[in-house]
């Protein structure tokens, strides 16, 4: 008998077992059903049990993915920081420049303005924070691009 490789006794049994697994993969559904019936089992009941198991696993995975996403959001928020005064000043300059170029900017972009109330101070502060964060990300991306070169 050809021996694929020198192996210990455990390997020998596991290779036999894998041969059995491969033969199951290659078997026809008819044969597998016959074998189950010969062992006193109902193939349809086996299929239903696998369906139930996969459905249960699917629910478990959906729950885990949701928890992972929630954890990512928490981690992102924990990593977010308040812009420094310098960053906020730079963002204000950037916003002013944008407004100078488009005087309807506020009414286009801010929810409060859609109600003809103008932008609230909180809206402006939130926008400044976002601009500061954007600037930081752009700088990080620039640094990484430079590193890559």
């Amino acid at each position, binding site marked *: *008998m050809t021996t694929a490789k020198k192996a210990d006794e455990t390997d020998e*049994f596991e290779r036999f077992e894998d041969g059995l697994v491969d033969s199951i993969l290659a078997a026809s559904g008819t044969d597998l059903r016959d074998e189950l019936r010969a062992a006193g089992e109902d193939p349809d009941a086996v299929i239903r049990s696998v369906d139930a198991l996969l459905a249960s696993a699917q629910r478990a995975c959906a729950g885990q993915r949701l928890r992972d996403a929630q954890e990512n959001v928490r981690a992102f928020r924990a990593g977010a920081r308040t812009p420094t005064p310098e960053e906020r000043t730079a963002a204000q300059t950037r916003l002013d420049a944008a407004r100078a170029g488009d005087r309807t900017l506020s009414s286009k972009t801010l929810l409060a303005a859609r109600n003809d109330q103008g932008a609230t101070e909180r809206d402006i502060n939130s926008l400044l924070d976002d601009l500061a964060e954007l600037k930081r990300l752009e700088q990080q991306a620039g640094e*990484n691009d430079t590193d890559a070169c």
Partner: protein
Amino acid sequence: MDDVTAAKQASATPDTHLCAVEVFAAFAALSADDKLKLDAIERIKRWGTGFERGQLLHEAFCQVVLGERRCPRDVPLMAFLVQTMRSLASHERARQRRTASMDAVAREGSVIPAGTAVSETVEAGAADLAQRLAHSREAVEAIISLFDGDEKAQLVIMGWADGCRGAALREATGLDQAAIDYAAKRIRKTMKALYPNGWTE
């Protein structure tokens, strides 16, 4: 690598692995025959793992969906899932063997000599056939002896145990594929009758 760079790279190269949604869809498309095969394979592979019935398949499914083991697009999901079960079972068996060895050391106050099968170290009362099957050449010989009078089945078992498949198995046994398939069917049927839930019960 930061998030921005990772996102750039991800968008620049097509994903070579299935995403969770695609895995879900592929599972939904499994045929009834595929499910019978998964069940039969799980019963065999969960031996010695400590997994209860269904848990090995459940764990394999979850690892593939959650991306802990990523299925390449060019590999059929069914094959990947079976390979994942094999891998999980192998790791868990190794862990169980290490635990058994440590228990034996604690009990006997000595180190198990290298190469000693775990079955030799367990208490005599627990040395039932299922445990003996797992860790010794005797296991394969015991299986071969179940097929006294069926030389073709014995040749196929020996070939599998030597790691032969396909053409190598045909060459090693001197049988054609039809004879091998028929012998494999007899082997499965006999093993199923003796061990309906794998080697565990």
